[in-house]
């Protein structure tokens, strides 16, 4: 029996697939069950689907590499991680340069100051014994001792901040020699000269720290962002 106004063929294909919206459509299934043309079409499409599902596997046209070559895999990873390397390499280099400059800047004055202290220390000890003997004779030993000690501290501060330890040290040694005869105001001058010393702290340790921090941060980020196998 042929019935006009057949359903759309795509709806019949959906029915052949077993789509729920098609199988639940009573008008569609009702039509198909009473229409030879539509029944044949649904059956044909069903057979076609079954045959398509049976199509066999196909051997490769050429031998395939079953394992990705380690080199190839590495190069892929290198390519993928290339941007991270390119971005962080200059940062790493800049960090290393800063750290090197900071290290040299920090270490060099320290060696020189140490030398100055050694020289000053030996000369002071020699002069101090002389100075103690002279004021002791006129009774001014108690006043003279304190300015001498203050000047010695100021000498160290100036040597650190000036970076040129030898000449200030020598001049202060000379001042130390005359210190026992000076008034307490002179000692105040020494204290006021000492005051700006903390503001003039050496920048080199900070440079060194910044450089090391940059290096560590760049290396860490490079390691985190680089892709890995697997």
């Amino acid at each position, binding site marked *: 029996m042929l019935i006009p106004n057949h359903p759309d*063929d*795509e709806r019949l*294909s*959906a029915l*052949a*697939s077993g*789509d729920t919206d098609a199988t639940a459509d009573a008008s569609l299934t009702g039509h198909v069950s009473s229409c030879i043309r539509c029944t044949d*079409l649904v059956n*044909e*499409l069903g*057979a*076609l*689907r079954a*045959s*398509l*599902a*049976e*199509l*066999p*596997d*196909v*051997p*490769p*046209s*050429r031998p*395939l*590499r*079953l*394992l*990705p070559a380690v080199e*190839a*895999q590495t190069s*892929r990873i290198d390519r993928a991680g290339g941007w991270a390397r390119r971005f962080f390499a200059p940062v790493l280099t800049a960090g290393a340069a800063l750290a090197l400059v900071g290290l040299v800047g920090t270490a060099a004055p320290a060696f020189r100051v140490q030398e100055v202290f050694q020289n000053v220390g030996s000369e002071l000890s020699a002069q101090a014994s002389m100075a103690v003997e002279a004021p002791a004779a006129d009774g001014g030993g108690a006043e003279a001792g304190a300015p001498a000690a203050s000047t010695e501290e100021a000498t160290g501060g100036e040597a650190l901040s000036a970076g040129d330890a030898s000449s200030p040290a020598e001049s202060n040694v000379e001042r130390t020699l005359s210190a026992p005869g000076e008034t307490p105001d002179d000692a105040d001058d020494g204290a006021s000269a000492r005051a700006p010393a903390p503001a003039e702290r050496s920048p080199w340790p900070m440079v060194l720290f910044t450089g090391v921090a940059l290096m560590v941060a760049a290396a860490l980020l490079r390691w985190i962002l680089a892709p890995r*196998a*697997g």
Partner: protein
Amino acid sequence: MTDAPERTPANRTPPLPDEAAVIQRAADGDRTAFAQLMEHYQSACYGLAWRLLGDPDHAADATQDAFVHAYRAIGSYRGGIFRSWLLRITANASYDILRRAQRRPSSPLPDGEEGSAPELPDIGAVNPVVEATKSELYRHLEVALRRLPEDQRTAVVLCDVYGMDYNEVAAMTKSALGTVKSRIHRGRLRLRQLMAEHRELFSE
């Protein structure tokens, strides 16, 4: 290609007898175990790629890409049918190549002269399980598939040949669900027309 009902026709690669153990070894970094899996399923992967791409070289490239993707992803494999998992990877790799290679309006693949497409492998010769009549049917089906517009062929191959559901096909082809259904139905109806003169092969 839903994981629930496993459907492995007789002429398709069945699972390895000790597949779960081999997969576990491969996931643990055993390269030999991974190679064993890829060797076992290479015909399945290549067949899918070849049907989607229609070109032996592109199909081999896509299969090779799929192996690399699988190698990198097998550590995160979380069970299910391994063949389906691998075929999904292959389908994605093939589709990537298809998109790159065919940035032009969808068109059927060239298939040479009627019934004598030189790229078609002689399925009966390489797979002794396939009977002669079936071999003839499959050959005509392959030729008919290649005559479909690319979007319909992709949808029919993924859905009807490899059993993926509509949602999977839609996600893979980045298309709307309704569009995918329409492509499948229209492709199927077009296939029926193309196979009209070989209709007797379906009943044998």
